[in-house]
């Protein structure tokens, strides 16, 4: 076997240009397939883990997927709000260990501003890890000290991107920054008091302020008068704001953690039967599953395309080797003359095409590892996807096995041709 392997290798090496090209084409196709699969799995895991520790997401009744997308991933925007009293009621429920209000709508340089409470910093978990501080501290409680109204905490990515340090003064923007009503809150600059460590969760790309701060920036708004016209009046008003008056009327969402996760369904039922306001309580896992159902079609078509590309690469290996076989009839005749049986020649050619395919597959796996290593920062920062480059997952192994099976099938074609030719030609191949 070792002899045949070395013979097949030396024969292949003599035709290395063509074989190297098809090997690379196999490698690239494997790279595509594996990367798609890895991204799919890692995206799913990152999304799921971004929510770890949150047992329920509460918001106005509507689409569960939408609620989860805007409240957790800051994708899209809320179309309606829930009443603040709903939050107060949830807080008083005995089963609830913690509840964090989420207020959305403003941005800082395109990054969402989250109006919330300091409880978030102690309770929120991403990838099973609590939040830790790169610099500074959480914003204070405005009910205790009015200065906390001017404080802001930055996610790791926001701080990194703009090079912000503790003490920097930032101006938030109303809305996403592009619309006609989107005005800067120039009258309310905020001071950076803390910067969070990177987590891989969307919170890295967020700017966090107190709920009261959020409210203070919008005092007098929503009256149907252009903010510009009100600006002068507000400038004088802002300085005299009493934190006690800064309770919002409505919220975008509430994150809830329970003492006991098994009570999640009864708590949900209770929240959804509150009287004042039609509320919805969503189990993040269930909402994610719904989301995946939607995304699945796209995912599956990507994997399908990857699979087809891989299969076509294997076919190109078969085609190249099949064409090459015409030029190898003399080689086959020489082997026949030395007593090599046609069946052994079949194995000999099979060995070569499998060598090419397996080398391509291994190379593709190697490429994909390299790509994931190289792109992991970009993926985490741009897409919030925490990739874990490493040994192929079980699913990746399955597709590698499937690819090897296709490779085996494709290898049979040239091998069968070799068998046929060696029987037909015997010792006298046509001159080539």
């Amino acid at each position, binding site marked *: 076997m070792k002899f045949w392997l070395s013979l097949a290798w*030396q024969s292949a090496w*003599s035709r290395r240009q063509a074989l190297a090209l098809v090997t690379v084409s196999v490698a690239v196709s494997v790279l595509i397939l594996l990367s798609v699969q890895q991204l799919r799995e890692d995206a799913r895991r990152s999304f799921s883990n971004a929510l770890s520790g949150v047992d329920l997401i509460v918001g106005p009744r509507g689409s569960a997927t939408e609620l989860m997308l805007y409240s957790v991933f800051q994708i899209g925007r809320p179309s309606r709000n829930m009443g603040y009293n709903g939050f107060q009621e949830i807080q008083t429920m005995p089963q609830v260990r913690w509840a964090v209000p989420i207020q959305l709508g403003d941005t800082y340089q395109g990054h969402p501003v989250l109006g919330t409470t300091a409880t978030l910093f102690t309770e929120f978990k991403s990838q099973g890890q609590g939040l830790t501080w790169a610099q500074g501290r959480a914003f204070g409680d405005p009910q205790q000290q009015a200065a906390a109204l001017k404080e802001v905490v930055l996610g790791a990515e926001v701080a990194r991107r703009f090079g912000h340090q503790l003490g920097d003064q930032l101006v938030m923007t109303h809305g996403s920054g592009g619309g006609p009503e989107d005005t800067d809150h120039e009258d309310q600059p905020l001071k950076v008091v803390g910067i969070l460590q990177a987590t891989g969760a969307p919170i890295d790309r967020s700017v966090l302020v107190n709920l009261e701060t959020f409210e203070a920036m919008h005092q007098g708004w929503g009256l149907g008068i252009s903010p510009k016209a009100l600006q002068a009046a507000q400038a004088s008003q802002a300085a005299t704001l009493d934190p006690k008056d800064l309770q919002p009327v409505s919220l975008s969402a509430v994150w809830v953690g329970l003492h006991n996760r098994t009570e999640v369904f009864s708590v949900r039922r209770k929240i959804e039967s509150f009287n004042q306001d039609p509320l919805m309580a969503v189990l993040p896992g269930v909402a994610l599953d719904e989301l995946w159902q939607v995304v699945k079609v796209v995912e599956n078509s990507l994997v399908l395309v990857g699979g087809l590309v891989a299969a076509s690469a294997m076919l190109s290996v078969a085609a190249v080797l099949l064409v090459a076989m015409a030029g190898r009839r003399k080689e086959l005749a*020489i082997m*026949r003359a*030395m*007593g090599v*049986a046609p*069946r052994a020649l079949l194995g000999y050619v099979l060995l070569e095409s499998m060598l090419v395919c397996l080398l391509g597959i291994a190379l593709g796996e190697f490429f994909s590892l390299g790509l994931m290593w190289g792109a992991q920062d970009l993926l985490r920062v741009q897409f919030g996807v925490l990739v874990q480059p490493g040994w192929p997952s079980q699913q990746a192994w399955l597709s590698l096995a499937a690819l090897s099976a296709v490779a085996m099938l494709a290898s049979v074609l040239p091998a069968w041709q070799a068998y046929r030719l060696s029987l037909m030609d*015997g*010792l006298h191949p046509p001159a080539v």
Partner: protein
Amino acid sequence: MPLALHLSELTHAWPGQAPLIHIPQLTLPQGQHLFIQGPSGCGKSTLLSLLAGVQQVQQGGCQVLGQNLSELPPIQRDRLRGEHMGVIFQQFNLLPFLDVAANALLPTRLFASRAAAASQVWGSPQAQAQALAERLGLPLSLWHQPVHQLSVGQQQRVAAVRALMGQPQLLIADEPTSALDDANQLEFLDLLLNTAEQQSASVVMVSHNARLADRFHQVYVWPTQEAA
């Protein structure tokens, strides 16, 4: 005395055509050389394929090295050829991706019995290959060259070394000299026949060149089309 060949009423025809080969009787004692002379395209090469066991005997008796080829299954004919025969073509005998030494040693790598036979007589396959190369006038400096750097004459010598490795009893040569110039033809043929004789191997060679016939113990002149 054992016979290298014993043919009787050997007949071979392509489907729907008149017989290409018809040999009523031909016997070659082991160690003697047979020259088969005839024009090209007359069926000589097919006869060699039959003798080498590559093609199935259709009709008649065909005993090679004591084996009745018409009764042997293909795999055993391949084995007989691999273990006990050497084949030399007109040209392009060598695998282009192996160097001279690897080409020469191929039979002993493919069949353990040939490696054993070479070791028994010469100490090792390498020793036999080098001794044969020396006898056939192949400089050892070429030993690790790629084969495409060799002249046609040198390539034929490597093919002869390979065919003689591991003490085969029968050498089958199909116009082995026709790619060589006249002076080289006779020199190569003499070396081949003498070396084979030293190893008690029979040589069966086909050629259109009648000038070579006097070197052989037996000559079989291919009958003309009318006679066939």
